[in-house]
């Protein structure tokens, strides 16, 4: 603090729409790191993979962390949503559209044209971006990388780095800090490192927290065969998967609501909460959106149940046409439409335009299942504090699930909605202390 004249205030070092020089340098570090990966993608023979990978990841991490530090160090701990509706990135401006387009294209390449990323066909060596991640893949599991390994690495990096940003932003709220640490832990260990290590031990790829019906291929032949071939450990995983769906999920949801999964454990939710936090206010709050949400999400739930029943019937009896259409065709179309197009391309690609939880809100069959449990068999609810609501609209605005929280809060009603993922941000942004997430009721 410095006073430059008796009548002048201390110079205001507060936040601004304009980036300071240090922030620009930090963003340049991130850009340089990404550029390194892009150059390698375009011509992998230019340099060795290992140094490029190490240097680029270091630059991206360093840039991201120093940017975060500079963004929040001058701010008092508390809600910092200034400029969300005026900034081009967060208010659907040109920056947002460009980013959405780039993400969408990346997902399309990832799902349908992995050879463009450099995936070696028929056992040939990888090239391009995938070759860049070979050293990391060899280190973890002794095999070369696939497009999914590259995706997993980038995904984990996004959750970890932007998770740290989220923690810094919400450092005044222990609920937000603990929740984000949990997300980072489950993504890094359960979704990324553990399955890779299991593969290196010749065990099947298995993400312990990815439960059916989100993990729609759980009952597919290749998956079940893979588990059964792995002997005792495989049977344990089979048991884990079934118990996860039939026992853990209902019990934990009864105790804590669907949040135990959606905003503490799940990777899709994890990305939405960290990388997607910047876009959470873009969710559509209209009644119309809510109507479509119910139609689509329960439609997907029916689809996954029908598809899975058909697949199981085929496995057990050989009968392929339980629901008229061939079970293999059903499974194929589910994978294409829901598994790839909806959860990936729309779910993440459209973050900057439709908000961070499009997949979780409209598409995820696990969320649909958890939602039904939460609505009818759970102690979880959000309570309102008497008559303190001033109808300001912060809670509804920052609800990533598009719940019109204010509509309940201003009437003093508890909020008990199937879609609520319990992220706790409505309660955090409330300027009058009106909302509280509760177990018990």
């Amino acid at each position, binding site marked *: *603090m410095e006073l430059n004249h008796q*009548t*002048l*205030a*201390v*110079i*205001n*070092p*507060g*936040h*601004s729409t304009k980036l300071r020089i240090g922030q620009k340098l930090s963003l340049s570090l991130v850009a340089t790191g990404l550029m390194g990966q892009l150059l390698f993608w375009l011509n992998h023979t230019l340099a060795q993979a290992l140094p490029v990978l190490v240097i680029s990841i270091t630059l991206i991490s360093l840039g991201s962390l120093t940017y975060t530090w500079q963004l929040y160090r001058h701010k*008092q*701990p*508390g*809600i910092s*949503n*200034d*400029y*969300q*509706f*005026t*900034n081009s990135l967060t208010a659907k401006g040109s920056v947002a559209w460009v980013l959405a387009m780039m993400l969408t294209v990346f997902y399309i390449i990832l799902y349908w044209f992995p050879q463009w990323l450099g995936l070696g066909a028929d056992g040939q060596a990888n090239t391009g971006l995938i070759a860049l991640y070979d050293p990391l893949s060899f280190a973890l599991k002794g095999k070369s990388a696939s497009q999914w390994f590259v995706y997993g690495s980038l995904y984990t990096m996004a959750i970890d780095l932007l998770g740290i940003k989220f923690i810094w932003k919400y450092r*005044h*709220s*222990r*609920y937000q800090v*603990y929740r984000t640490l949990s997300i980072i832990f489950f993504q890094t260990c359960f979704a990324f490192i553990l399955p890779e290590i299991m593969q290196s031990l010749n065990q099947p790829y298995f993400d312990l927290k990815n439960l059916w019906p989100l993990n729609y291929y759980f009952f597919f032949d290749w998956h079940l065969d893979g588990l059964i071939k792995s002997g005792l450990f495989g049977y344990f995983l089979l048991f884990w998967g079934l118990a996860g769906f039939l026992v853990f999920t209902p019990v934990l949801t009864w105790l804590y609501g669907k949040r135990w999964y959606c905003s503490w454990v799940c990777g899709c939710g994890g990305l939405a909460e960290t990388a997607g936090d910047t876009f959470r*206010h873009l969710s559509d*709050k*209209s*009644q119309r959106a809510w109507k479509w949400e119910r139609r689509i999400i329960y439609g997907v739930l029916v689809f996954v149940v029908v598809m899975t029943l058909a697949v199981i019937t085929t496995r057990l009896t050989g009968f392929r046409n339980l629901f008229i259409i061939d079970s293999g065709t059903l499974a194929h179309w589910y994978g294409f439409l829901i598994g790839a197009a909806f959860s990936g391309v729309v779910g993440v690609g459209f973050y900057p335009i439709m908000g961070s939880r499009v997949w979780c809100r409209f598409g995820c069959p696990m969320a649909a299942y958890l939602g039904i449990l939460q609505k009818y068999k759970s102690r979880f*609810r959000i*309570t309102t*504090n*008497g*008559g*303190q609501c*001033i*109808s*300001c*609209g*912060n809670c*509804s*605005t920052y609800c990533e699930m598009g719940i019109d929280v204010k*509509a309940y809060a*201003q009437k003093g009603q508890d909020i008990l909605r199937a879609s609520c993922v319990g992220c*706790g941000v409505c*309660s*955090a942004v409330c*300027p*009058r*202390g009106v909302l*509280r*997430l*509760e*177990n*018990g*009721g």
Partner: protein
Amino acid sequence: MNILIIGNGIAGSTAAREIRRRSDHDITMVSSESVYPFSRTALMYIYMGHLPFENTKLEADDYWEKQRIRLVKGEVQSVDFAHKRVHLVNRESLSYDKLILATGSVPQTFDWNGLDLDGVQGLYHLDDLTRLETASQRGITRAVIVGGGLIGIELAEMLHSRTIDVTMLVRENSFSNTVLPPEESEMVNAEIRRHHIDLRLETELKEITGENGRVSGVVLTTGEHITCNFVGITAGVRPNVDLLRSTGLAVRQGILIDAFGQITIEDVYAIGDCAELTVATPGRKTIEAVWYTARNMGETVARNICGQSTPYEQGVWFNSAKFFTIEYQVYGSVPVSFGSGVTSLFWQHQDQKKSIRLVYDANGKILGFNLMGIRYRQEVCTKWIEAKTHIEVVLEQLELANFDAEFSECHENELRKIYHQITGKNIHKKAERSLSSVVKFLTSWS
């Protein structure tokens, strides 16, 4: 029956919604500010870019049509009580069987020179926000805010969010010390300064200076001159009744109303900021210009109009605010000084951002709660106050009131320790912070 409401703030809007819930009367609501009712208290969030105007509306636009509440945008020119007609500036006129006046407040000004200069304004009306935005776009390099109070500190936060240097002139020797006890008031002073606002206590404005019709600075009563290109006037509000003063209506500061919201003229009611109770409950003010009072009055008037005679009761006082990052909640009676039978038990966090104060009388009866940076549950505090619960019983069960988010640090033990230091009595915690215990408590011994 044809009901006309002037003003669509929280008082008018609540009245309209509650009348509809109870009856089939024709309802018309007039406002010169906006067609659709919105939350006035959210103006600051629009300016800071937290949310768009759309999100501050009380209800979705089609709600009012579905509820058959007619919304009219127009400015009232005069009210003809004798013929039960309201004339608008656009020459339209509206008739009524029952009239509800909910005209709200206007910023309080004094006879300062320069109030009419460009760049001098209050922050109350939607138009004020537009003017502030226009001024900001043009470029405010330095702003002076005249008056402490909630709107003053909110305006400071708004300007601060745009990196504008702000000087705040406060007449008292500490922020809002006519409402907040000294320690809490000092916490707000510190919070204001933490945000690099130039807070000038015991400082008064003499006049505002201008050049070519635009504000150029202010002169203080000490003679000091501060150059600035924006002046915010936030020295409180007063009832918006100028239009009604010459109509024969009983007006003191506000429109005088009886316990049923009715005024001296038959079939006319007044609610919210513009209304003044003829007689207030002991210890309370005749005008309580806050959101919650307006809403409660709106509900009461709706009952009375719909045939359910209900007196307006001031109830257990509560209010809340946010001073930059520090949330504030108050329940019951919290004076600004203690002694003469009223004691307070006060705990403050070392970072000066959190505090809890319990106020009780000589017999140990709990009177009030004052919270900074900590959330307490209104229903629980109100119930203790209404039941005149003993401070020691409150201390035993204090966790029931805690409304902070999960995993938040609990400080209720600190209060029990302080009580022990003062009285030598050991109070043991007897309740857990859980919803089921709260529900049990609220539904038992009433």
